[in-house]
């Protein structure tokens, strides 16, 4: 027996799905969290019917007529797959909006059970709903549920009602008088019918038109004046906790354990092992992977903080704040949702762009989402912020907001290239503020940490082992002396590439090699640098300073200064993402021209930004321009020239349109 969970966005479908199946699918306190269906089995503790029950969680929909791609998933599943029962999750705090969809579901001749969810919140708001009357009027069972609590939540009753109606199959849809109407007029009739029902079953003690404390808070938090400063402050605190206040302390402990493991393996092998074999295991595998894993506590803290912000309802306000600015560049607040998701991993972030109906906006969002610093890029930020900038929280914060600025700039350019002047409208249902669930945030962090560790133990490990081997041998397969790694295969491949990076301040083969391996997975940048510089622990900056000699200068170890380090950081953050994200971009963009344009745009953006950071930074700190200025300038002028030409051409397209119409 298959049960389909349907309902409006943010009605609590995935929370209910998790509660019924015992799964830990991601939930979020805003609309549009689920974009594809998920399946699970009903927990035996809830299923007393003896029937085999599977549950399908569907993306939220306001109507059976799809407006967005993910709404089509719901419509297609219900109409084509025809589940045995539909459990319609109705947000009891917003009955009138939810029941519109319910009436459409009841007309499909599939048994429906209504889960009147969030009933604790409606009680708190002093809203009373007569469930028996509602059940009689809609001619289907109605069960009050609270899916966020583990007992007395109504879920057992809900499952047994679903089992019962699937056997009887005697439901009749409510009679709505559609005579002589179709299309929009029929919808108006349906709305009238829904409003009549709501008036009969719902009694509100608090007038919904009256301003609540939440509304007052939103007037400040989402205001045009205070919204952005508050957002900057919040993100600064998040990055400071992760990368300055608590993260480094925890990472120091983990780094100590990794060092101890390294020492233990070294001691176990003894001194009789072949140096190449020993280096492959110690520096390539343990050192390289350890350097990446060492940043795990920082990443966990950042994800934990972001999960709390999302759960309390703040991130939905961020979408509203950003909408004001994004609509001016041809995007909308809807684009900010994939970008917020992209701070975890660019892949689901890019995929979340499918919630955007407008094709140009959707493609632009998929193309620009990788500019947000994802989880894989965080070790790079933490590495350079820790080593060159004393672990200051503002580095991460500024990279986060630089990402947003670049997205805005990129959106504007793409809009001009397309000659599009259409205006976008964004409507989001703001969820209630609530105390964030530490349990949900911890589950989210555990999932992401698991993914990070698996990635470090698979693709990162293999890449680091390969880098170590390429660094150990020359083209004649002779072992390269430790003092002359520039004779290695790796150096000979990376050196020609490094020439391109001289105008950016990091024209060293080690940085070129790390940037290239970063396209496989961004964590590889840290792993490759660890292997190339034979450093296991990037967290212990004091140790690095000691390696830098009497001056205690880490730039001696790496061969670049703070300005070049910032340029390298910018280059890695704003050039194309890893291959997996590039693959996701390709499938979401769905156009070869747009896809290759996106890759070219990202490469050009990363190179130009890094050039500007290095040359302006060097000029400001030393009074002279950095090395390779002329060559870099020629490259940047070419990039800017191509973009300008495309923008002018796009502008002409817009002018040409009305002329055609007038003929």
């Amino acid at each position, binding site marked *: 027996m298959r049960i389909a969970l349907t309902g409006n966005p943010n009605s609590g479908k995935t929370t209910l799905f998790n509660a019924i199946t015992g799964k830990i*699918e991601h939930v979020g306190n805003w609309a549009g969290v689920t974009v594809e269906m998920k399946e699970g089995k009903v927990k035996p503790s809830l299923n007393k019917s003896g029937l085999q029950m599977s549950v399908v969680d569907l993306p939220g929909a306001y109507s059976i007529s799809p407006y967005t791609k993910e709404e089509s998933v719901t419509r297609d599943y219900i109409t084509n797959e025809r589940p045995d029962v539909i459990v319609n999750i109705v947000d009891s705090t917003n009955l009138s909006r939810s029941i519109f969809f319910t009436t459409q579901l009841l007309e499909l001749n599939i048994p429906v059970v209504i889960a009147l969810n969030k009933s604790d919140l409606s009680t708190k708001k002093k809203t009373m709903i007569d469930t028996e009357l509602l059940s009689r009027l809609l001619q289907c069972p109605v069960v009050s549920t609270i899916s966020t609590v583990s007992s007395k939540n109504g879920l057992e009753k809900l499952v047994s009602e679903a089992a019962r109606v699937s056997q009887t199959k005697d439901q009749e849809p409510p009679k709505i008088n559609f005579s002589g109407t179709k299309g929009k007029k029929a919808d108006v009739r349906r709305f009238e019918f829904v409003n009549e029902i709501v008036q009969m079953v719902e009694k509100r003690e608090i007038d919904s038109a009256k301003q609540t404390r939440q509304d007052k808070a939103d007037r400040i938090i989402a205001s045009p004046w205070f919204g952005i400063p508050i957002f900057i402050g919040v993100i600064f605190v998040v990055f400071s906790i992760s990368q300055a206040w608590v993260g480094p302390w925890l990472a120091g402990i983990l780094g100590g354990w990794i060092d101890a493991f390294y020492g233990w393996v070294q001691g176990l092998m003894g001194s009789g092992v072949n140096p190449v074999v020993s280096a492959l295991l110690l520096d390539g595998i343990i050192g390289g992977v350890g350097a990446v894993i060492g940043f795990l506590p920082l990443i966990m803290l950042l994800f934990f903080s972001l999960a709390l912000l999302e759960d309390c309802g703040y991130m939905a306000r961020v979408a509203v704040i950003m909408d004001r600015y994004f609509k001016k560049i041809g995007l909308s607040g809807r684009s900010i949702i994939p970008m917020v998701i992209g701070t975890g991993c660019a892949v*689901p972030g890019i995929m979340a762009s499918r919630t955007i109906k407008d094709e140009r906006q959707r493609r632009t969002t998929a193309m620009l989402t990788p500019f947000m610093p994802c989880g894989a890029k965080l070790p790079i930020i933490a590495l350079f912020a820790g080593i060159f900038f004393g672990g200051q929280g503002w580095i991460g914060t500024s990279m986060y907001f630089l990402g947003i600025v670049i997205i805005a700039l990129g959106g504007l350019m793409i809009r001009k290239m397309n000659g599009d002047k259409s205006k976008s409208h964004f409507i989001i249902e703001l969820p209630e503020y609530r105390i964030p669930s530490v349990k949900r945030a911890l589950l989210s962090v555990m999932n992401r940490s698991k993914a990070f560790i698996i990635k470090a*133990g698979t693709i990162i490990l293999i890449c680091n082992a390969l880098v170590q081997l390429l660094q150990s041998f020359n083209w004649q397969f002779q072992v390269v002396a430790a003092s002359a790694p520039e004779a290695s295969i790796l150096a000979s491949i990376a050196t020609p590439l490094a020439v391109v990076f001289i105008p950016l301040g990091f024209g060293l083969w080690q940085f070129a090699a790390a940037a290239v391996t970063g396209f496989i997975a961004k964590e590889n940048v840290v792993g490759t640098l660890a292997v190339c510089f034979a450093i296991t622990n990037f967290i212990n900056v004091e140790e690095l300073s000691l390696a830098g000699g009497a001056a205690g200068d880490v730039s001696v170890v790496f061969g670049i200064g703070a300005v070049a380090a910032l340029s390298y950081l910018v280059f890695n953050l704003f050039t194309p993402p890893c291959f997996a994200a590039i693959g996701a971009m390709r499938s979401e963009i769905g156009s070869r021209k747009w896809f290759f344009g996106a890759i070219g745009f990202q490469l050009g953006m990363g190179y130009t930004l890094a050039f500007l950071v290095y040359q302006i930074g060097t000029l400001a700190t030393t009074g002279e321009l950095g090395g390779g200025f002329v060559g870099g300038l020629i490259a940047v002028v070419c990039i800017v020239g191509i973009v300008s030409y495309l923008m002018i051409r796009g502008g002409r397209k817009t002018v040409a349109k009305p002329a055609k119409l007038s003929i």
Partner: protein
Amino acid sequence: MSYIDFIVIGVIAAVVALAIIKMVRNKRRGIKCSGCEGCTKDCTERK
């Protein structure tokens, strides 16, 4: 090459083989990037 060298090489080969097996299994499940299930319907982080 001493016997300890072969033991260490064996350990490295085993670790790399395990990593490759995991990646191949993930690939079969449609996962493009090891560790992250973001591109599949199994993703627990999918939004």
